[in-house]
């Protein structure tokens, strides 16, 4: 009966539940998308890890103690073993393409049946100088099949290779090497293979063969069933997508919170509209619990519809996301239990949101069914105790946040954020409701339409306030994220600029640097370069890594980055890494003797970042000192400085492109640092924009719903206004002003809350490592305000149309 009654309500007024369903769809959709993304990308990554093991029957693993390059050969003699293929792997640096980067080179088994992928274009490699590349690797390097590349392993000499084929492996790992190549075993001549893949003649006797192979192997080698080994490899592979998943979960949590607010508000309105129906239900013998169950059942119905739709949409989106990142190689993977939990969360959130309105419904007296009273009396703004409790929480929260900023403690900042959210949820609706009175008075100055809008907002202050809350939550999070990420970027930039006097540099190991590289570096826009000559030197050993070269700075460069070198009198200054001074137990300014060019040179040692932030550990002194001492120097490095506020990513890309053409150089300087944190901050910024979109949609639905209901309620008032000569346009304007006032009040409150919280977050997160730089992300804040106005106008369109359709005569009849 309860369900039938609830269902009849849903069927009679499906439009009313639209906002609820949409809010649940969004919240559940994000949860499901996150779950799908996580499991699909995990599956893809697992598959990647396990792929080489899926074609073999037995896997041999050699431990660190095995040094014989031919340890695997004994396996071929074991009865039942059909083939033995050693598995080699090398990590190399790749040169010659558009970019340079590290690559993983794996061996391709000689036995065709053990190869776990096929070549799409070109041929399998047959000689040492041939490789097959992952399709994406070729795209990233900007080369095709037939290209010539240089591989360099460690500090060894570069080896030329030809790309003879490409394969589409359908994945890109998020971590580890940039590129992937596959070569014939002959490429790895001299290496000790860490593993070998075996096939057997009779799979039914596999366990026995595994044992036999195990016994035939030298100590340190283990033989495993390949199925078990691939499972183990897959489970060892913890995805590199955790950070992204955590961010997406935060996203989903916000969507859930905003949805709960919209749902609660919608139910509040629905219940107050139905007071007489509820009273009738009570009059004919419905218990309080039965009444609240009707509302909760309605919530469950709407929640289930929304959650199921959301889950379906979310699975699609999550898979799409994994596909965009090319980590969906394992196909769609979703844990049905997790998906069911997402749906349950959506339904649960709806029911929880409907709880308070349902309780309110139970307080309707049955006698109200017999009385001719107003359907919904505007509730006066009360609840001083709630306001006080909320304010106390807020004061506490501000205190904790302040402490977090001073103590740069992230856990404390999180605790403060939670307190703040709790305090705001309690106090803010009342605060906004109280604010609406002066706002309404202010609106009266802008003409009749605005005045009427204001008076309506004031009349339904409580309801308006809760609709505003959804906007506040969204706006606060968006601005918090935007400010945090902008300030975070600015902080990291400033910190890197301070710590890395050399923005970008390339250097050789000691050989003269190629003139073309020097030329190319000089050609990079925004970079002021200078060639630095170095000399081999012997520093007193400190146990820690000890510099092995002295850089001789040209006077012009020294003036820009190392003014401390130009001190006259006493021994010449040698800049050394601070860690070296500490390890040697030397004070700043202590004398230090270094052997260079066959003679002892006396220096005054000073700690400087310049000595260890160019990609090499160096002693740094001025060119004249070494020239005067007669030490021969070789130009081995190019250092570049950039004006403050340069585009780090562009510069890094340009320098990388230069380095890609010269296998002899390594990249150093500020551009090599900060990439990871910058990536995270960029994602954060993008996320805040994505969240803006979601919040706009949820707020749009909530406000449109609120206004739609209020237009229905005020049908007679509107008709009367029309009968008295109010034009349609003015009615439309009135509804629009109401909507925009809600979104603007909510957004401004959100910004006021979000900006300081975002700043505290940044200070707490990075304040200990770097001097925080405050950046208010004005473009984003402006965008949020514009979005607020647009959302308000859009939300008012449908209710305004309904308002103008009311015939003037309707105001005169009952």
């Amino acid at each position, binding site marked *: *009966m309860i369900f*039938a*009654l609830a269902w*009849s*309500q849903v*069927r*009679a*007024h499906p439009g009313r539940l639209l906002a609820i369903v949409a809010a649940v769809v969004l919240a559940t959709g994000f949860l499901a998308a996150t779950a799908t993304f996580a499991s699909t990308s995990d599956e893809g990554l697992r598959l990647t890890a396990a792929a080489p093991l899926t074609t073999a029957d037995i896997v041999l693993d050699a431990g660190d103690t095995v040094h014989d390059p031919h340890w695997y050969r004994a396996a071929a003699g074991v009865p039942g073993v059909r083939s033995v293929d050693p598995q080699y792997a090398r990590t190399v640096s790749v040169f010659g393409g558009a970019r340079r980067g590290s690559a993983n080179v794996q061996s391709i088994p000689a036995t065709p049946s053990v190869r776990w992928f096929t070549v799409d274009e070109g041929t399998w490699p047959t000689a040492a100088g041939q490789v097959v590349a992952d399709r994406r690797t070729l795209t990233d390097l900007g080369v095709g099949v037939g290209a010539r590349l240089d591989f360099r392993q460690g500090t060894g000499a570069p080896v030329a290779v030809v790309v003879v084929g490409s394969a589409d492996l359908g994945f890109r790992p998020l971590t580890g090497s940039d590129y992937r190549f596959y070569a014939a075993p002959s490429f790895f001549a001299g290496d000790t293979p860490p593993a070998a893949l075996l096939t057997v003649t009779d799979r039914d006797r596999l366990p026995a063969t595994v044992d036999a192979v195990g016994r035939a192997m030298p100590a340190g080698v283990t033989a495993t069933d390949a199925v078990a080994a691939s499972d183990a490899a897959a489970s060892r592979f913890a995805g590199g997508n955790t950070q992204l998943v955590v961010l997406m979960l935060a996203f989903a949590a916000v969507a859930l919170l905003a949805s709960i607010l919209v749902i609660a508000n919608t139910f509040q309105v629905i219940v107050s509209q139905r007071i*007489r*129906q509820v009273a*009738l*239900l*009570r*009059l*004919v*013998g*419905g*218990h*309080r619990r*039965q009444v609240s169950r009707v509302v909760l059942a309605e919530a469950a119905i709407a929640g289930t519809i929304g959650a199921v739709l959301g889950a379906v949409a979310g699975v699609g989106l999550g898979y799409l996301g994994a596909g965009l990142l090319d980590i969906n190689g394992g196909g769609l993977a979703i844990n049905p239990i997790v998906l069911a939990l997402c749906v349950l969360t959506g339904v649960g959130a709806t029911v929880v949101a409907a709880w308070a309105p349902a309780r309110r419904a139970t307080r309707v*007296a*049955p*006698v109200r*069914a*017999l009385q001719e009273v107003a359907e919904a009396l505007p509730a006066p703004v009360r609840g001083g105790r709630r306001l006080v409790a909320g304010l106390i929480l807020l004061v506490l929260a501000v205190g904790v946040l302040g402490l977090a900023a001073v103590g740069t403690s992230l856990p404390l900042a999180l605790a403060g954020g939670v307190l703040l959210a709790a305090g705001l949820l309690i106090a803010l609706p009342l605060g906004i409701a109280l604010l609406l009175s002066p706002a309404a008075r202010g609106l009266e100055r802008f003409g009749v339409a605005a005045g009427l809008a204001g008076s309506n907002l004031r009349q339904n202050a409580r309801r308006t306030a809760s609709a505003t809350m959804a906007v506040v939550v969204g706006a606060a999070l968006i601005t918090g994220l935007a400010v945090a990420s902008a300030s975070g970027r600015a902080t990291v930039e400033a910190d890197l600029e301070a710590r890395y006097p050399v923005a970008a540099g390339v250097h050789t190991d000691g050989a003269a640097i190629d003139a073309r590289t020097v030329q190319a570096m000089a050609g990079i826009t925004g970079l002021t370069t200078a060639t630095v000559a170095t000399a081999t030197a012997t520093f007193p050993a400190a146990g820690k890594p000890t510099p092995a070269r002295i850089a001789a700075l040209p006077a012009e460069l020294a003036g820009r980055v190392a003014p401390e070198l130009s001190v006259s009198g006493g021994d010449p200054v040698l800049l050394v890494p601070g860690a070296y001074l500490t390890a040697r137990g030397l004070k700043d300014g202590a004398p230090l003797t270094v052997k260079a060019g066959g003679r002892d040179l006396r220096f005054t040692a000073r700690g400087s970042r310049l000595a260890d932030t160019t990609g090499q550990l160096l002693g740094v002194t001025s060119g004249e000192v070494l020239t005067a001492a007669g030490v021969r120097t070789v130009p081995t490095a190019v250092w570049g400085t950039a004006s403050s506020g340069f585009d780090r990513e562009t510069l890094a890309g340009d320098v990388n492109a230069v380095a890609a053409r010269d296998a002899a150089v390594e990249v150093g300087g500020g551009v090599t640092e900060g990439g990871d944190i910058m990536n995270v901050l960029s994602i954060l910024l993008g996320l805040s924009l994505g969240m803006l979109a979601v919040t706009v949609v949820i707020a749009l639905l909530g406000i449109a719903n609120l206004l739609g209901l209020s237009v229905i309620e005020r049908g007679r008032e509107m008709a009367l206004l029309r009968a008295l000569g109010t034009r349609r346009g003015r009615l439309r304007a009135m509804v629009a002003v109401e909507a925009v006032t809600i979104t603007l009040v909510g957004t401004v409150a959100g910004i006021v809350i979000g900006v300081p919280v975002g700043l505290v977050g940044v200070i707490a997160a990075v304040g200990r490592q770097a001097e925080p730089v405050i950046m208010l992300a004005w473009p984003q804040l402006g965008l949020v305000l514009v979005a607020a106005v647009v959302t308000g106008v859009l939300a008012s369109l449908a209710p305004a149309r309904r308002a103008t359709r009311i015939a003037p005569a309707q105001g005169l009849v009952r």
Partner: protein
Amino acid sequence: MWAARLFPNVATVTMQTKSSSMVSCHHLRKRYGTGDAAVVAVDGVSTSFAAGEFTAIMGPSGSGKTTLMHLLAGLDTPTEGEVSLAGTSLTGLDDRALTDLRRDRVGFIFQAFNLLPTLTAEQNIVLPLRLAGRPVDRGRLQRIAASLQIADRLGHRPAELSGGQQQRVAVARALLTEPSVVFADEPTGALDIATGRALLAGLQNAARQSGQTIIMVTHDAAAATYADRVLIMADGRLWEELRAPRLESIMSVMASVTVPS
């Protein structure tokens, strides 16, 4: 006419002797507000309503008749005094017990807004039984619906029914649970004369033939003539009690309370 055929068809209602009192109140007082703003809506009313008796409560606007009915039905709590309904004292009953009492022993018919707009006529009629978790006697439902001439309207929603049909659906709902007491608040207020008369005749029969106690609040003296007795209220007190009332006697008493001498 539907009402004439209604009550013989209604299945047996637990018969109760006319002498036993189904509803009674003792020194009933109801005050709203406090201090200077206090209004005493019901001021020391004591009376009883026998089983199978049809009583009309009349009085000018503000005389307290509606408040008295609410107090008798347990919809409002008295400031002083006591009400007992079907042998149960309402004093101190919690909401749950009151709800059960309403559901099982009391029926309501009133002027407007009788039905839940989202439910069909049939769903509205069986609502109290479904709320109580009791089975619905389909045969009985069909008989009541047929006698009220709404059998072909059961699948419709209230919005698709005329005012008279809606009122008959509400009557069917009040009768299906075989309540001991039916409270009616201006039941003919929204009906045309013929339909209103038929409804009143039906209520009369419900009292006489099924032994149900009917307590009706009305403004309409003609409607009150269908009752076994008329209680006339003024200023929250019982002013006059008329047995087997005739229109002229009601009119004259009403005139005496409306226009104070």
